[in-house]
C-alpha cells in the first residue's frame, strides 16, 4: 500500500503556505488546506487496516521512503520515510481536528492587520508550518525527520508568540520558550544521537533501529544515560516537572491558535517519542529511571496541580492545568503495560482536544473582556450563555467526566498503574501502584481548580471590579462550529473508546511482543 496519502498530508499544508506567500488569500487558503487535510486524514483512517497484514513485524502502514542522503560526506543514509500505525494514526487524527479548529478560530485578516499592523500572510503560513511539522514528526519513520519536523514546527511557534502574542511580556516569553525548548531539543538530540551511535550508527530508520535494539540490544550502561537524556529532552518538551515553567507563561502570551496547537498537539511529540523510541528500545534504561519518572510525574500531578489552584487568571490557570494533566500521561507511560500506554495515547488525544477547546474559549473571552482575572469577573453565564455552556463542556471534559474521552483515558492510566500489582500480588504494592493512588488525588485537585474557575468566571454575581459588560455578545454560530468540532470529537471517543483502542491494541501488542516491554 504505497499510496502517497502520507506525503500529501504532510506537505499539503506547506504547499498551501507557499500559495499564501504567493498571494493566495491567507485565511481562506489555510482553512481550505486544513479541510482538505482533514479529509485526507479521514481517508487514511478508513483505509487503515485495523489488524495489519498478517504477522507483520512492525505494523506501520502506508509506508513510503525516499532516500535523501546516502553516504554523502560521511553521513549515514537518511530517508524521508513515512508510515502510520495505531499510535501515530490517533495523533494524526488529533492534529487534523485541532489544526482545523485552530485555523478556524484564528482572527480575520483585517483583525491581524489591526493588531500592531501585522501580516496575515505570516500568521497563516506560520500556523500551516506548525501543523505540517507536527504531522511530519508523528508520521516520520526515520529518526532524523522525526526530530527535524518537530523543530520545523517549533520555530513558527516561537515567532508567533513574539510577533502576534498578547501582553507586554510576549517577547520575553517568546524568548523563554525558545531557549528552553531549544535547550531541551539539544538534550534530546544528544540522546537520539547517542541512541543512534550505540546501535552501530548504521541506520536512522526507526524500524531498523528497533530491530537492532531487539537483537543484541544496547549495553545496560549506555541505555542508562541515553534514556536519561531522552527523558529530560522529551520531558522538557512535554513540561515534565520541574522542567515546565516555560509553558504557562508562553501559553498565556501565545495567540489563541498557537496555544491550541502547541498545548494540544505539538507538546504530545515528547510523549510520542517516549512511547515510540525510549520505551521499546531502552527497556533497561527505562527500568533504571522509572522511579525518577514516577517522582517527577507526581510533581506534575500534585505540586503543579496545587500551583494551578493558586492561579488567579484564566489563561495561566489553563496553562498550568495543561502541565498538570501531562502527569497522568506520564503515569500511563511509566506503567509500561498495554493498559497504561493505551491510556496515555488516548489521553494525548483527549487532552489535546480538551485543552484546545479551553484555549479557544479563553481566546474568545480575551477578545470580549477587559480582564481574565478571576476577581474581575463573574456571572458571565447569564450574559453569554452559549460560551458558558461550551466552557462547561471543556471544564468537565478536563475534569474527566464520563462521556468525554478524558475519563476513559484517565481510567485506563490508573488501571495501568495497578496492573503490576494485579499481575504480581506476591511482590506487594510497588511504587508504580502507589503513584497511581497518589495520582488519583489529582482528580480531586483538577475538580477544585476547574470548578473554581468556572464558578468565578461564569457563576455567581458579577465582581464589583468587573468592567462594563453590558455590550457582551455571545458566540456566533460561525464561532461555535470549531468548538463543537472539538466537543464532538471528545464525546465520540468518550462513548466509543473502542474506535481508538481497536487501532492501538495491535500496535501495542506487537511492540510488546518485539521489545519485551509493555
Amino acid at each position, binding site marked *: 500500500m504505497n499510496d502517497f496519502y502520507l506525503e500529501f498530508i504532510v506537505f499539503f499544508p506547506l504547499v498551501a503556505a507557499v500559495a499564501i506567500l504567493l498571494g493566495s488569500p491567507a485565511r481562506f487558503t489555510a482553512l481550505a488546506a486544513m479541510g482538505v487535510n482533514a479529509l485526507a486524514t479521514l481517508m487514511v483512517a478508513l483505509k487503515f487496516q485495523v489488524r495489519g497484514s498478517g504477522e507483520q513485524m512492525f505494523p506501520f502502514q502506508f509506508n513510503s521512503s525516499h532516500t535523501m542522503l546516502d553516504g554523502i560526506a560521511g553521513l549515514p543514509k537518511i530517508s524521508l520515510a513515512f508510515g502510520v500505525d495505531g499510535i501515530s494514526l490517533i495523533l494524526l487524527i488529533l492534529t487534523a481536528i485541532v489544526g482545523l479548529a485552530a485555523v478556524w478560530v484564528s482572527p480575520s485578516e483585517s483583525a491581524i492587520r489591526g493588531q500592531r499592523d501585522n501580516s496575515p500572510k505570516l500568521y497563516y503560513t506560520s500556523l500551516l508550518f506548525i501543523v505540517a511539522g507536527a504531522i511530519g514528526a508523528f508520521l516520520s519513520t526515520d529518526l532524523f525527520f522525526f526530530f527535524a519536523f518537530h523543530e520545523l514546527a517549533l520555530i513558527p511557534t516561537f515567532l508567533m508568540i513574539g510577533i502576534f502574542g498578547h501582553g507586554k511580556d510576549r517577547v520575553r516569553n517568546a524568548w523563554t520558550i525558545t531557549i528552553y525548548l531549544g535547550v531541551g531539543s539539544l538534550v534530546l538530540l544528544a540522546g537520539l544521537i547517542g541512541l543512534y551511535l550505540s546501535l552501530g550508527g548504521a541506520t536512522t530508520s526507526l524500524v531498523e533501529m528497533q530491530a537492532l535494539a531487539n537483537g543484541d540490544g544496547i549495553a545496560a550502561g549506555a541505555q542508562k544515560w541515553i534514556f536519561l537524556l531522552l527523558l529530560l529532552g522529551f520531558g522538557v518538551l512535554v513540561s515534565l516537572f520541574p522542567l515546565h515553567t516555560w509553558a504557562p507563561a508562553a501559553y498565556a502570551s501565545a495567540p489563541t491558535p498557537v496555544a491550541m496547537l502547541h498545548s494540544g498537539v505539538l507538546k504530545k511529540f515528547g510523549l510520542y517519542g517516549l512511547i515510540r523510541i525510549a520505551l521499546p528500545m531502552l527497556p533497561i534504561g527505562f527500568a533504571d529511571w522509572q522511579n525518577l519518572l514516577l517522582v517527577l510525574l507526581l510533581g506534575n500531578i500534585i505540586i503543579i496541580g496545587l500551583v494551578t489552584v493558586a492561579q488567579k487568571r484564566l489563561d495561566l490557570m489553563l496553562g498550568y492545568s495543561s502541565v498538570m494533566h501531562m502527569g497522568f500521561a506520564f503515569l500511563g507511560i511509566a506503567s509500561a503495560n498495554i493498559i497504561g500506554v493505551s491510556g496515555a495515547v488516548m489521553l494525548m488525544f483527549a487532552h489535546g482536544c480538551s485543552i484546545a477547546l479551553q484555549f479557544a474559549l479563553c481566546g474568545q473571552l480575551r477578545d470580549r473582556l477587559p480582564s481574565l482575572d478571576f476577581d474581575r469577573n463573574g456571572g458571565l453565564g447569564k450574559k453569554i450563555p452559549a460560551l458558558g455552556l461550551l466552557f462547561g463542556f471543556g471544564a468537565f471534559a478536563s475534569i474527566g467526566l464520563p462521556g468525554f474521552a478524558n475519563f476513559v483515558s484517565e481510567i*485506563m492510566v490508573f488501571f495501568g498503574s495497578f496492573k503490576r500489582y494485579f499481575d504480581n500480588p506476591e511482590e506487594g504494592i510497588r511504587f508504580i501502584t502507589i503513584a497511581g493512588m497518589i495520582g488519583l488525588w489529582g482528580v480531586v485537585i483538577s475538580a477544585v481548580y476547574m*470548578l473554581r474557575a468556572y464558578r468565578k468566571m461564569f*457563576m455567581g454575581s458579577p465582581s464589583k471590579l468587573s468592567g462594563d459588560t453590558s455590550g457582551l455578545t455571545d458566540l456566533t454560530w460561525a464561532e461555535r462550529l470549531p468548538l463543537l468540532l472539538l466537543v464532538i470529537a471528545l464525546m465520540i471517543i468518550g462513548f466509543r473508546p473502542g474506535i481508538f483502542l481497536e487501532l492501538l491494541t495491535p500496535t501495542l501488542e506487537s511492540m510488546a511482543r518485539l521489545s519485551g516491554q509493555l
Partner: protein
Amino acid sequence: MTNAETLPWIILLLPLLSAAVILLFTRKSSSVSALISVGSVIATLVLAIGFRRLPEGAESAALPWIDLGETFRVAFGITIDSLSKGMLLVVTVIGTLVHIFSLGYMKDDAGKSRYFAGLSLFMFSMTGIVMANNFLMMFVFWELVGVSSYILIGHWFEKDSAADASKKAFITNRIGDFGFAIGILLVWCITKSLDFGEIQIFLTGPNAAGVNAGLLTAAALLVFMGTVGKSAQLPLHVWLPDAMEGPTPVSALIHAATMVAAGVYMLARVAFLIGASEFAAFTITWVGAITALVAALMATQQNDIKRILAYSTLSQLGYMVMAVGAGSPEAGMFHLYTHAFFKALLFLGAGAIIYSCHHEQDIWKMGGLRKKMPLTFLTFVIGTAALCAFPWITSGFWSKEAVLLAAWQYNAGVFYIAAFVAALTTFYMTRLVIVAFFGKPRTDAADHAKEVPAVMWAPLAILAVMSLLSAVPTISDAMSAQVPGHGEAHSTLAEHKGDHAVTEAALAETTSETAAEKPVAESETHAVAEADHAKHPSVVLYASLFTLVVGFIGAIFYYRGQSRDPIRIGVFANKFYVDELYALIVRFVQDLTASVLAGFDKYLIDGLFARLPSAGAYGIGNALRRLQGGNLQSYAFLFGLGIVIVLYIVLGR
C-alpha cells in the same frame, strides 16, 4: 431479541435522549422541553414496571466499552435482580412525581429547559447506577449523577450561595470518589474482576481464603468512601445541607430520595464485600450510627425548613448505612425505599410551602399554614408520621423497626444510639410541624399563603398514599429488598409482616431468619450471639414506641404556642462548626500550600531552570540584534541553522 436484552437499555437511554434533544433542539421553547422530559420519565416508569416482570438473573445485551483483548475488558451490562428492580421502581415513581410537581414549581423559571434537561440527565445517570453490573459502570454513572447534581444545585447559578453549593457538592463527592476509585482498583487486583457477580463468586469461593485480610478490609473501606461522599456520611456530609440551594423538587428527588441513597444501594449491591471483613463492617456501622446521631442533633436547631429536612435526610441515611454495616442490607434497603417516598413527600410539601410563601424558608416566619394550605398540611403530617415511625399504619414504622432490629442484633451501643436518634427525629419533626403549621401566621407571606395548584398537590397526595400504603403487605412486599449474596432464598422482612400480626412472635421469626442468613464469612459464634439477642426483640418495639412518645411530648412541651425558639444550643445550630473547620482547612492547608508552591514554582523553579538561562540568552539576543540588526525571525532562522550544523558535525563524525 428478548425483552430482557433490550428493555433495560431503552429504560436507560430514554432519559439521555430526552436530555440530548432538549439541549440540542428545544432550549428556546421551555414548555416543549418540559413535556419531553416529563414524557420520557413517564415512559420509563411504565417500562420499569415491565422490567419488574423480567426473570431474575436474565441476561441482557452487554455493550462493550473498553476492550484491550485479554488484558482488560469492560462492558456495560445490566443486573436484573430484585434489588435493581425495586430500586428502579422507586427511582422512576418518585422521578415521575417530581417531574410533574416541577411543572408547577418551575412554571415561570427562566432556565426551565436547562432544569428539565438536568432532571433527564439525572434520571439517566441514576438508572445507570441501579442497573450497573460491574464496578466501573457503576463508577461511570456515579460520576454522572455527580454532575447532574452539580447542574441542578447550581440551577440558579447567578446566586452566589447556589454557585458555591454546587461546587462544594461536586468537590466533596470527588473526595469520596478518590477513595472509591482506589477501592475499585484494589478489588480488581484482588478478585481479578470488576463484575459484581464474579467478585461475589470469588469472595465466597475457595479463593477467598488466600486473600490478604488487611487488604480486603482496606478495599472494602475505600469502596465505602464512595458511599461516604454520595450518601453524605460523616465526615463528608457538609455538602448536602448546602445542596438545598437547588430548586426544592430537586432536593426531593436527588438530595433526599434517590441519588444520596445511591451510596446505600451500592453498599447493598456489594454486601458480600462488607461481609468479608468484620472490621470494615464495624467501621461502616459506626459511621452510620454517628452520622445518624450528629445529623439529628443538628436538625433540632435549624430554622430553614429545607435544612431541617436535609439534616433529617443525613440522619436517615446514617440509619441505612448503619443497617447495611450491621449485616442487614435488607433492612437498609427497606428503609431506603420507604424513606424515599415519605422524604420526597416532605420535600415536595416544603416546596409547596415555599412556593406559596414567596420563597420564605424560615419556619419562624411561617405559622398557621394548617388553615391556609390544608392539603399540604395533611400530606405533610402523613410524611412526618412516616418519618417518625408512627406505629403500624405508616411505612416508616416497618422499615425503622427493621433498622432498629439490625442495630439491636449487632451491638447494644449502636442500638441505643439508633433509639435516641428516633426520639430526636420525632422531636425535630414535631417542632417543624408545630412552628410552621400551627399558631398564627407570623409574617405577611405566611398570611397570604394559598393552597398550591393540582399539578403540585396531586403528587403530594400520591406520595402520601404510598407512605401509608406501603405498610400494606403486598406493596411492602413489592418494595422489599432481596440483596444478592445475602441469602438467595431469603424471604424478606416485609413479607414477614404479611399476616399483619405485629406480634413479638412475628418479629422474632424475622429475626431468627435474618440471623440464620448471615454471610458465610461470619463466624458461627457471631451468629449464635445474635440468635441470643434475637430472643428479645420486644425491646425494639418498646423502644420505638417509647422514643416516639418522648420526642412528641418533648416537642409539644417546648414549642407549642412559641413565636421564637425557646432552645438555643449554638453547637447544634452551627452544625458542630464542621463547615468552619473545613473552610479553615481549605484556606490554610490547601490554599496556603498552593500559594507557597506557586511562589516556589514562580521564583525558585522558574528562576533556576528558565529565567536565568533566558536572561542570558536575551542578552545575547540583544547583542545579536545590535550586531546584525536582526530580530526574532532572524534568531529563529539562526536557531534552525544551528541545529542543522550541529547535526551535521555530530552525525558526520
